[in-house]
């Protein structure tokens, strides 16, 4: 049998160039890994002996911890580097940081960086596997994947589902990864928000555009509500948070008018009372905490696959650990 095996390649820098089969493979591989986190002893030896560096040039709590749990539950050895206190602040370039890590013979790098393209930049220059944990406004592929998995858990196959991303699309790596992943898997994608926070050509990216959130709610099966970065107000993109909430905020009152039972996602951290009201965040529509739980499983799946694991052996790899 010389049949070409489906793989992710060396790195995961984005969802834009992944095929439907590759996306499906990651989501399917995440399924067996979900259970590990429910065990009393949350550890399997899938990545035993692998060294992983979590290289965070930008502050992150949720994503970094999620990756760290995923790595530790798969028994990898991990090191965290954050920009404060690292040689980066002493003027070392990204490429030198990468080469130094490489010289210490690491297996994988998880990188979060403020510049779009930083993960790809690193991936092209070192032989280790590189996982993008968010690069500038570009992509946040594991967030996109956990959103896909959560939607699939609750609404079944994504084909034909209508998903609207609400908020600051322009500056959002979460939006881009969602748009690429959802469209590849056959969902219809819309974006909604003030024009100041839209990318230059959302239609060319295959998205329907809604100016008013009521129209989006009328249309959608799923809303993915993005965090409004508070600095957008200082940048003048929106005049006030209060006005943003009044016009684009997702509230129960607005959801009650929807023709369907809408699923509400949010990548966190939330600004309650700005882009999302508390009664929505804590209510029946919300699957926000399911997203967080799925995040660990999806990241385990990505780590496993990039380390050369085979999707159909994920269950066995996991079971083998228990004996």
């Amino acid at each position, binding site marked *: 049998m010389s049949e070409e095996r489906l793989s992710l390649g060396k790195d995961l820098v984005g969802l834009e160039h992944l095929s439907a089969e590759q996306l499906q493979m990651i989501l399917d591989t995440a399924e067996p890994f979900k259970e590990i986190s429910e065990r009393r002893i949350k550890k399997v030896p899938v990545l035993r002996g692998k060294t992983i560096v979590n290289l965070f040039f930008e502050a992150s709590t949720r994503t970094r911890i999620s990756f760290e749990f995923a790595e530790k539950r798969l028994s990898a050895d991990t090191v965290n580097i954050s920009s404060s206190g690292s040689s980066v602040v002493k003027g070392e370039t990204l490429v030198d940081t990468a080469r130094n890590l490489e010289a210490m013979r690491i297996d994988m790098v998880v990188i979060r960086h403020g510049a779009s393209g930083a993960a790809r930049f690193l991936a092209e220059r070192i032989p280790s596997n590189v996982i993008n944990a968010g690069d500038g406004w570009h992509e946040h592929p594991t967030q996109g994947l956990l959103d896909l998995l959560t939607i699939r858990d609750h609404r079944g196959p994504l084909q034909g589902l209508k998903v609207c991303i609400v908020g600051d699309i322009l500056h959002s790596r979460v939006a881009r990864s969602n748009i690429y992943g959802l469209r590849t898997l056959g969902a219809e994608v819309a974006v909604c928000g003030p024009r100041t926070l839209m990318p*230059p050509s959302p239609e060319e*990216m295959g998205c329907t555009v809604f100016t008013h959130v009521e129209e989006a709610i009328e249309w959608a099966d799923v809303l993915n509500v993005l965090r409004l970065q508070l600095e957008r107000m200082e940048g003048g993109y929106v005049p006030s948070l209060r006005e943003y909430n009044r016009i684009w905020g997702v509230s129960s009152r607005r959801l009650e008018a929807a023709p369907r039972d809408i699923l509400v996602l949010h990548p966190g951290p939330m600004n309650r009372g700005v882009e999302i009201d508390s009664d929505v965040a804590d209510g029946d529509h919300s699957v926000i905490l399911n997203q967080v739980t799925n995040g660990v499983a999806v990241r385990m799946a990505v780590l496993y696959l990039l380390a050369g694991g085979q999707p159909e052996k994920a269950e066995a790899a996991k079971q083998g650990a228990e004996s």
Partner: protein
Amino acid sequence: MTAKTLLKGGRVVDPSQAVDDSLDVLLVDGAVAKVGSDVVAGEDTEVVDCSGLVVAPGLIDVHVHLREPGEEHKETIATGAASAAAGGFTAVCAMPNTDPPIDDPAAVGFVVAAGRAAGLSRVYPVGCISVGREGRRLTLVGEMVDAGAVAITDDGSPVMNSGLMRLALEYAQAFDVPVADHPEDVGLSAKGHMNEGIVSARLGLAGKPNASEDIHIVRDLLLAELTGGHIHLQHVSTRFGVESIRQAKARGVRVTAEASPHHLVLTHEAVDGYRTEAKMNPPLRTQADVDAVRQGVADGTLDTIATDHAPHHYDEKEAAFADAPNGIVGLETALGVVLTRVVGEGVIDLPTMVERMSCQPARAFNLPGGTLTEGAVADITVFDPDEKWTVDAAAFASKSRNTPFDGWELRGRPRRTIVGGRTVWSA
């Protein structure tokens, strides 16, 4: 002792005299002595066989960055002049955005002296419009011109203050030098790293919209019309910009304008993959803009082709896209790229190329050269219009290698660069 050179049997292309014929060119003591058939060489004459080659008035690049003083790790006046010579350029105009900037007569004198010391292609200084390039107060334009400046500009930055630009366009008329501007409304574009469009949307990079350039072009045209001054618009990249200049020329506004080789052949798609070697300002734009720039060069709206040669050290380009500086080197690829992709694709013919790269730059900036009339300075470019070659950035005479054309297969390359009758470079 007299120095005599006879360029024998080449295709002499001199649009300034509407000449395009197989002729000989005799150079005596740094000047063109005779252009004609079967010119007989005396015993003391060096004869250069130019059969199969084009002999043209020397190429002139009115827009280069030679980085000296202040950034000698990228380029020096000497290496920049060497790069010019190797690219077939007999003269270049050095932009003043150095550190310190060329904003007073002494600094202008430094560039003149360094250019002479290099002894290769001619290096003409361009002085700043504003002191320190700060956009507030006019420089000593008259004294800078006396010291050798051939134009003024704050290039690298636009002149945002319209009042200052008006003063510059008025004041410079006393010295008959063009006022060159990098047209960009930075309020619209300052955060941008590439053209605003579908590629910037996909890559998650902040964009510079066409409007940022268009607004500034229109403003400069209005100010030139108001003052009667000579505005020279640099590296025009937008379709509306080209059309605005076309209309202004029809109204009789004193405007000259450049197209850069990269804006004639590359679109913003070249940035995909975060390729920092395709990062420049103005950015590469859409195919519709490229088509308009080509049309502008064809009909003379954009009368000059200039490279905006902008060397950067490889460390500086080896960075995340947003952190990399703008600009590419252009002197050693310009002729080949234009011959292959602009002349070769029928946008302009070869004499028009010589017009855009030699005759018109000389006229626009009041420089010697740009013609082979008898008595003219003997600045001559000899090139093979058919030679096939592959761009190898590692072999550049420039100190820097930041080019999106590395590895391109081109047709047409320089063979001999003659400055003041002296061969300063030959293949």
